[in-house]
């Protein structure tokens, strides 16, 4: 575990709460998906929560965040309301997007969550565009985009790295390198194992870190974001992590070996932080209180979300256009 450095025991305990909220949130997604309450095919970030929590700890709601198909954790860590986020994932009218978006398209403008795309790598240029706007409007916000190692196969990622370095944009590229894309390993996608290598041609600053160590993520994300806020341009942070869940809820995961599953708990960022906090002298009781507090908070929000109403079918045609009517259109 990374030397805690400056961070206090209570802040670490705070990070633990953040990790637990995401874990519990997605446990509920999984549970309700099994009973058919969750439409679509949600992708869980279980095992990867430390990246979301460690990075977003440094962001204000003015900073812009873009994520992808595995984005629940990022949205919660950015400060979105647990109930409204869950309500969206189960398609309720009280959801962040009034049930129009769903798990892969979470948007919460008020908290700077400008979007999630289901098209791998499609979020990268959007995030660069948000950074360009910040630069053009002269405000001090930055843009952060989360993506997976599989996104490096997509050309637009490389186009975006080039433009971000050329225009010196205030953007943080956060790669969650879990070594897998759907059912195939990194080796089947590229000879390049470290994603940070793709930033090298641009001389873009990068760091490859242990993404399951929330303290490491917190510290190095802080450094990266600091340099971006100082106007030093884009930064790529590669977080080596591990997808404890299947690719999506329902994935049979035949590709996983017994030993792999056995080794999982060792890697679990929550278990690691707990062990560390104990070693640092935090009382077991305080740790349990944090875990239990997060669990309660999420369960209550989930129940409220489930009690909320469903979108009225008659409203299905709302929000297509802002400035024209649908009159002239067949349908």
């Amino acid at each position, binding site marked *: 575990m990374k030397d805690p450095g400056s961070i206090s025991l209570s802040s670490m305990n705070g990070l633990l709460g953040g990790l637990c909220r995401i874990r519990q949130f997605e446990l509920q997604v999984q549970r309700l998906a099994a009973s058919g309450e969750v*439409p*679509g*095919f949600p992708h869980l970030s279980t095992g990867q929560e430390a990246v979301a929590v460690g990075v977003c700890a440094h962001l204000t709601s003015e900073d812009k965040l873009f994520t992808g198909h595995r984005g629940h954790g990022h949205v919660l860590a950015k400060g979105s309301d647990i109930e409204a986020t869950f309500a*969206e994932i189960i*398609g*309720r*009218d009280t959801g962040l*997007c009034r*049930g*129009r*978006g*769903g*798990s*892969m*398209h979470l948007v919460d403008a008020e908290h700077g969550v400008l979007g999630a*795309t*289901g*098209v*791998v*790598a499609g979020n990268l240029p959007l995030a660069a565009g948000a950074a360009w706007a910040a630069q053009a409007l002269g405000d001090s916000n930055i843009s952060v985009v989360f993506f997976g190692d*599989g*996104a*490096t*196969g*997509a*050309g637009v990622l490389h186009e975006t790295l080039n433009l971000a370095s050329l225009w010196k944009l205030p953007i943080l590229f956060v790669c969650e390198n879990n070594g897998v*894309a*759907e*059912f*195939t390993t990194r080796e*089947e*996608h*590229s000879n390049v194992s470290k994603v940070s290598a793709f930033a090298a041609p641009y001389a873009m600053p990068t760091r490859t870190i242990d993404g399951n160590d929330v303290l490491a993520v917190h510290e190095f994300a802080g450094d990266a974001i600091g340099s971006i806020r100082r106007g030093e341009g884009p930064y790529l942070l590669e977080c080596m992590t591990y997808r404890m869940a299947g690719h999506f809820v329902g994935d049979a995961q035949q*590709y996983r070996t017994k030993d792999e599953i056995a080794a999982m708990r060792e890697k679990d960022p929550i278990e690691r932080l707990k062990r560390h906090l104990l070693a640092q002298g935090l009382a077991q009781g305080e740790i349990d209180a944090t875990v239990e507090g997060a669990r309660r908070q999420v369960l209550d929000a989930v129940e409220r979300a489930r009690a909320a109403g*469903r*979108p*009225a*079918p*008659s*409203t*299905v*045609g709302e929000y*297509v256009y802002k400035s024209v009517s*649908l009159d002239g*259109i*067949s*349908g």
Partner: protein
Amino acid sequence: MSQTFIEILRRALDEELARDRAVHLLGEDVAAGGAFGVTRGLAQKHGETRVRNTPISEAAITGMATGAALCGLRPVLEIMFIDFATLSLDCLVNQSAKYRYMSGGQLSVPMVVRTQAGAAGGAAAQHSQSLEAWFIHVPGLIVVAPSSPLEAYGLLKSAIRMEDPVLFIEHKRLYTMREEMPATVELPPIGRARVARVGDDLTLIAYSAMVTTALEAAEELARSGISVEVIDLRTLLPLDMRTIATSVSKTHRALIAHEAVLNGGVGAEIAARIGSELFDELDAPVTRVGCPFVPIPFAPELERALLPGRENIVRAARELLGTQG
């Protein structure tokens, strides 16, 4: 015993791989079985060099399939969702479709792009589209959209044997549909539609998953004495106007149903052609049933409210025949 669309499609691929060494499959996770399991086991049987995983590089793998087709292979490329075919479009439209023409007939591109389309179960706005209309506007392409497992079996085999690039569209709702595999299936010709149900009062034209819905609607209408002829287009480009004309000349009424949004959809082309070529045959305006001009929403209630179904077809048919209620 019956098999699913996926199993029967897999069998077609298996047989084509065995029949012709030039056939190669490529796409994301296809050697691992593919996102929907269509290619499960084929890499083990035919080798990882003939059933090949790719990175998430839709543009490049479409270009590679095209380049390989120029050089003696018969690639069958899987694009996981038609929504991502947007990333293949430069190559498909500017290269694959035009190669034969631009080269003055020197080269052609015998490749099949299998893709999966349509809305179901909350896949939401970026994994639910029906974009076939774009492709019928591109000279040089062939577009096929099967309506059942056995149709897909024959049409996929025929597509793999074509000398031109074929877009082969599989509707996600069809994947669980089951049919009995007969001893022999004769391969349907590309470019020929099929009369799925014979009738006299109205010609109902559909394709892909909408054919099942159309047949259900025809059944319901039959109960109130309305005899509907259902045409399964099978191939959207080129379009089989002969079969359509024969039917409309008999029924004098045409109704077109598809899941895609109406505006600029395939139904527009069909309606325009019936309206101009069969003007004197028509006793009523050609009518279209399709999706309102809205992206596919996530919530089930909204998705259901948006997608055209049996009732929409029945209502439109009754209006067309002036027999409301």
